[in-house]
Each structure stands twice: as structure tokens, then as C-alpha cells.
């Protein structure tokens, strides 16, 4: 028998308070399965740490993990299942903005709090059901501005090409950058690519033909490796400057020597700045447990989980409205591993500091380095 979050049914023979259920909807399968899997690990890490530290006022946190399948409909189903069958009041997820859009109204109706680590679509900001949705990722708008700034800083009327994933993430960033560049640069080519396809030679060829000064890229480590590798093959580097997104800045990207060498030469990126020491501790713990580097959104999901746990502790009830309020109060200059977190009244992270980063070579290995901070 599984403990119920209501607190009134107690497994016989135990004196411990009943478990507190925490739901998780991550995309373990589908197009973003690579990320989804690692996010689950970070959540498990956070919960394990919290349980070792005494849980929620003595109660153990019990995780219920569902697969959102990178599909808004499936994500919605997963949320309904967690909310009804498992009686979860708080759910970490869903991972993609689409699933947030499909389940937002339901979350409000049924008073289930959704905390997403990665749904970055600016569209979500204005939704009527925002009371039960909070996110620890900054929206694409903010990053878009930061990326645009690098271009405008370099001079006016530069030629810009886009090479972005054809999903809400990539297109969102492309739109945000385009909006910020309006009148200040010319867009010469926009390629939206499918991140699950593994071959972008022709697309890159096309960009090359447009002879841009800058190429704005939005993607993740996995497709970025291929993009940069093949860009290197086609000689699509200096003097052309690539500007890529935070999704790329993962240790994994640099494991490929060819891609890393190319990045060291021709690629810079933007990234919300994390507070170094906190992130390093998290990274070490993650590495110790899973023997791999944490990737994209692992920091925000870790923060989301910790915020949820802290809020449940503080609210001391199973009332999701109170928990939501608690998250917003705790989330004022909260020291997260993904940097300081401050929510506005909707539960969106207000402006973050971004850095411009690059890649440097040390002997045979490559590492990320901060070039400068971007304040927009």
C-alpha cells in the first residue's frame, strides 16, 4: 500500500507520519528523452538529499514519476494520473511548454501546483490559469535579448542567420532575438531543424550560401555536437561568429574533440549565470551519484524540487494554494544552483544575469569560460 498525501490514512504499525507524494512529469521518451532522463536523476538526487535531512517535517517524500513523452497530450494525461490516482498536490513538470499549455487549466481547476524547470515559452506568462504554475527557468525572451545584445554590440547592420531547433524552444529564441534585432540587423536566412534528425549538412550549406556575419543557434548538446562538427567540415567558422544558447553549454558538448575545437574558434554562447560554488556542489553530488556531468536544465530542476520541498515544509499542509504562495515567498532572491531566483507575482523568474561564454583549449581538453557578463 502506498501512503496517501492526505495524512488521514496511516499505514498500520508505523508511528512515522505518512509519506508526502511529489509528482514528476518529465519526458523520458520522445524527442527530448535525452534531457528528460537526466532531469529525473536530478530530482531524485534532491529528494534523496531532503529525505536524508529529515524529509518534510519528518515525513518522507515519495516520488511518482511519469513520462510526458515530449507530447502535450501525453503530458496532460500524466498530470491527470498523478493528480487523481496518486493524489499529488505538487508536480515537478511538465518539461515542455506545450504540456503546460494543455494542462494549465486542469491544474487550476483541480488545485495541483505545477513547477516546471524548463518550460520557457513566453506565451505562458499571460495565461489566465497562472496561479498554479511556476517556473524556475527564465523565459526565452530574456535570453533572446542577451543574444541579440552580442550582435548589436558588434556593430550595426550585421547579417544574421538562424539555425534553431524547430520546436518551441528554438523558435522561441529565434523569435525573441528577431524581435530584439528589429531594425538593427538583417536576417538573411532562417533554418529550423529537427533536433532528432542527425544530419544537417544541407542546412548548413544553405546558411553558408547566405554569407552571414552571425549565426544564432538554439539547441541542446546532442544536436549541437553534430551542428558544430558539420559546420567545421563545411568551413562555416571564423570569420562567421556563432552565438548559441544555454542548452548547448553542457560538459557533453565538449566531449567531441572536433566540435569542441570548432567551438573554441567560432562559437560563443549565452547562459543565465549560476552562483559558482552552489552549482559546483550540486555538480559534484550529481557526478558522485551518477558518474556523469549534469546537463541542460539540471540546475533549474534541482532548484524547482528544492523550492517545492521547502514550500511544503513551510506551508505544513497539503493545500496547494498555500504551497504555491510559499514558493513565491521563498523564491525572493533564493540562492539556487541555477543562480539567484526571484519570482514575479506570476511565478516567472524576473531578469537574470547572463554571461557570454566561450570555449578554451587546455592541452587536449576543452572547457567553458566566462567572457563577460551581459546586463540587459
Amino acid at each position, binding site marked *: 500500500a*502506498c501512503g496517501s498525501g492526505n495524512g488521514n490514512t496511516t499505514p498500520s504499525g508505523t508511528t512515522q507520519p505518512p509519506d508526502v507524494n511529489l509528482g514528476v512529469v518529465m519526458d*523520458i*521518451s*520522445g*524527442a527530448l528523452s535525452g534531457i528528460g532522463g537526466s532531469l529525473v536523476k536530478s530530482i531524485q538526487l534532491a529528494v534523496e538529499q531532503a529525505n536524508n535531512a529529515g524529509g518534510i517535517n519528518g515525513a518522507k517524500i515519495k516520488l*511518482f514519476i*511519469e*513520462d510526458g*513523452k*515530449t*507530447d*502535450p*497530450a*501525453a503530458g*496532460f494525461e500524466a498530470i*491527470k*494520473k498523478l*493528480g*487523481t*490516482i*496518486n*493524489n499529488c498536490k505538487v508536480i515537478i513538470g511538465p518539461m515542455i511548454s*506545450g504540456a503546460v*499549455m*494543455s494542462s494549465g*487549466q*486542469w491544474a487550476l*481547476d*483541480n488545485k495541483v501546483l505545477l513547477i516546471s524547470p524548463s518550460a520557457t*515559452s513566453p*506565451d505562458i506568462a499571460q495565461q489566465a490559469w497562472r496561479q498554479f504554475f511556476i517556473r524556475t527557468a527564465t523565459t526565452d525572451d530574456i535570453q533572446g535579448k542577451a543574444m541579440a545584445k552580442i550582435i548589436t554590440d558588434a556593430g550595426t547592420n550585421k547579417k544574421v542567420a538562424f539555425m534553431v531547433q*524547430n*520546436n*518551441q524552444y528554438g*523558435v522561441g529564441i529565434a523569435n525573441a532575438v528577431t524581435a530584439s534585432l528589429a531594425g538593427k540587423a538583417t536576417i538573411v536566412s532562417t533554418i*529550423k531543424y529537427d533536433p532528432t534528425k542527425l544530419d544537417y549538412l544541407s542546412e548548413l550549406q544553405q546558411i553558408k550560401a547566405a554569407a552571414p556575419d552571425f549565426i544564432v543557434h538554439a539547441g541542446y548538446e546532442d544536436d549541437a555536437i553534430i551542428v558544430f562538427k558539420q559546420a567545421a567540415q563545411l568551413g562555416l567558422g571564423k570569420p562567421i561568429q556563432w552565438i548559441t544558447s544555454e542548452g548547448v553549454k553542457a560538459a557533453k558538448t565538449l566531449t567531441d574533440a572536433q566540435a569542441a575545437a570548432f567551438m573554441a574558434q567560432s562559437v560563443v554562447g549565452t547562459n543565465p549565470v549560476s552562483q559558482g560554488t552552489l552549482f559546483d556542489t550540486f555538480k559534484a553530488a550529481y557526478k558522485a551519484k551518477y558518474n556523469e556531468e549534469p546537463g541542460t536544465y539540471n540546475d533549474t530542476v534541482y532548484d524547482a524540487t528544492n523550492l517545492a520541498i521547502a514550500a511544503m515544509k513551510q506551508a505544513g499542509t497539503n493545500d496547494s494554494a498555500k504551497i504555491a504562495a510559499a514558493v513565491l515567498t521563498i523564491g525572493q532572491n533564493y540562492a539556487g544552483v541555477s543562480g539567484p531566483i526571484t519570482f514575479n507575482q506570476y511565478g516567472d523568474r524576473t531578469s537574470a544575469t547572463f554571461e557570454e561564454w566561450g570555449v578554451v583549449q587546455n592541452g587536449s581538453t576543452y572547457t567553458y569560460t566566462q567572457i563577460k557578463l551581459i546586463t540587459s
Partner: protein
Amino acid sequence: MDLILVYVLNALVYVGIFSIVALSLNAEYGYTGLASFGKVAYFMIGAYSFAILVEAGVPWPLAIGLAAVIAAFFGLLVSLPAIRLREDYLAIVTLTFGEILRIFIKAEDWLANGVWGISVPPSFATGNFSKQLIINIILVGAILVVCYFFMRLLANSPFGRIMRALRDDETAADAIGKNRIKYKAQVFMIGSAMAGVGGALFANFIGYITPDSFLPIITFTIWMMVILGGPGSNIGVIVGAAAVQLFERGTIILKDYIHLPVDPTNVQNILFGLIIIVILMYRPGGLFKESKVNTLGTRRAMRWLNPSSK
């Protein structure tokens, strides 16, 4: 309403929607032998048509009807080149059509908001999920009943006989005066329209659709329902739809209690595959046998052979 009950009803809506689509595949494949692996395309066309129409202010009952018509139109459009192909080619071409359509919706964001998807305003603004659920149950249930009886009428009529004949040997059917292109196109239109209705109901229920809700896996799921339930049996495919839903949800819930060292999603998919293979191997006709054409002619012939039994 009790939460568990909500979940069960919620599952029932899915059973209903997928039953409708499975019935449509039964018309195409079960009776006519058309290997339509583009089911998700018409489901998607229905869903998007409905969403766009409702957004444009068309009342939802009309929008469902129009979604069916639009899907039927596309069914016709695709069928014209496709039904001249061999069955395996037809399967691959229709499968690709589904993929291309999804890419199209993604790429052409002027049409349907591209990767962002469309929100569908609820048909009854109840502002309460449980009420919404009950309305949807009734709606989906009613349409399913209509589709079921429609299919039954069709299967036990001369037209149903022609469908089966096309499945067996289309050249022979042509040689006895049945215009195979016309009949196949008609079947494709019926199937697409029904799948479109299913899509419209889906969009109406879920309230928000994006291209990524329409992956080829949906086609495979529907095929599994038909193969499992029994191609050529209308009751069968509905049972198949219910069984697949039960299986999917059952395994999801079960994994909360049984802890496996492996990823439950993987286990679920592996089981999914195994079940199909086992069914094909040990019960290739599905759980329910294909129903014989039962027309007046059959009964008349029986009396002829056996005049004593009235």
C-alpha cells in the same frame, strides 16, 4: 467527484475517441484491406480543423461536422494517387503522409501557430473539469454509438460485400463491374471522416493541441487496437481500443507498486510489442472473429439448402 472516478471517466473518454478511430481503420483495413498507415494524419486534420474553426467562432457541433468533411476531403485527395499502389507501398506512402503533414503544420506557422500549438476554447464553459468530463463522456459516447451502428449497417450490406471483395482481389472486383478506384476512394473518405471526428473530439477534450501530439505512434496504437480486437469485427476493435487503453494506463499505475530495475516506459513499450507479436502468432484473427456478411441473401440461401427449417 471522487478522484479515482474522475480518472476512470477520463480514461473512458479516450477509449471512446480511439474506438471511433479504430472503427474507421476497421472500415479501411479490416473490411477493405487498405493498409492505411496514415491514420494519425486524419486524426490530426480533424483536430486542427476543429480547433481552427472553433477559434474562428464556428459553433462546436458544426465544427465537428466540418472537421469530418475536411478530413474526408483530404482522404479523397491522398487516396487518389495512393490507392493505385500495392498494399505495402500504400502503407509506406500513407505513413509518410502523416509525417509530412506534421512537418507542414510545424513549418507553416501562419496556418496553425506552428510549434506553439492552438488552444481550443472548451465547448461548454463549465470551468470545472468534472462537469467538462461528463459532457465529454456523453458526447463521445453518443458519437461512438452512431459510428458503431453506421459501421454495422455498412458491413452487412452489399457495399460491405464489395469492400471485402476489394480486399481479396481488386482486379477481379473490377472485372465484375466494381469500379475499384471509386469504391476505395469512398472507403478512404468514410475512414478519414471518422478519424477526423475522433480528432475533433480529441481536440475538444484536451483543449490544446500541438503538432507533437500527432506522432506515428498514434497510428501504431490504433493498428494495435484493430489487430488485437479482430479486423473485420466492429465490436472487436472497440474491445481492442479499451484493452489497449487499459494496458497503457494499467502498466503506468502498476509501476507505482512494482519496482523494476529498468525504466518503466521501456518495459511498457517492450510489452506492447510482445503482446502484438503474441496475438499475431496465436490469435492472428484477433480476439473477435471477423463477422460474416449477414444479409438477406445469406438467410435466403440457408432456407434454400434447408427448406424444413423455416
